[in-house]
């Protein structure tokens, strides 16, 4: 059941990568990348549950913070054209 959900989320993120590869504009690619990041953190949560690794939960928290900061930095870069302003 748990490992089935992990495989399911992996397949969904493969389908969502259509928007990253084909997507007409940059915004589509960013939204697709955000979706894939959140699905990957869910996959990591399921793996931590299945193999009973409690340490992986800390890594997921750090991964979520990094995903948020990544999205903000990309948005800022595409808005201003440069990072420091």
């Amino acid at each position, binding site marked *: 059941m748990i490992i089935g959900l992990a495989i399911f989320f992996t397949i969904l993120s493969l389908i969502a990568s259509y928007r990253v590869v084909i997507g007409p504009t940059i915004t589509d690619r960013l939204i697709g990348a955000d979706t894939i990041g959140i699905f990957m953190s869910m996959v990591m949560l399921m793996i931590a549950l299945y193999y009973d690794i409690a340490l992986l939960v800390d890594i997921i928290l750090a991964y979520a913070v990094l995903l948020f900061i990544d999205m903000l930095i990309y948005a800022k870069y595409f*808005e201003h054209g440069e990072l420091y302003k």
Partner: protein
Amino acid sequence: MTLRILFAYFLMITGAAFAVVTVLGLLRFPDVYTRIHAGAVVLTISAVLVTIGTAVYVWEFFLSLKIMMIGMFFLFSNPMATHAIARASYKRKIVLPEQYEIDAYSDYLGRDK
């Protein structure tokens, strides 16, 4: 198979169904900003439901609290990230909506339709 485990499975499967809705909306919606809607609302709820289901499944005090913290972080951070992306793509003219009838924001930025 107690009632608690069944409830946890129910939450996880609801989250997975919302994830399917997210991917379908990402593929099917016609406009960039409507795709952002699918990414902002449904994706957040799917992630939060899966994390709450996991916290119910584990059912230890500190570990469940830590997993709930991930869900809370997603609930508050994902709308902010999508807002930043939408505003950037409007301001830098990466994507411009052409056929909108009501558009107060382009008046604010000082552009003509």
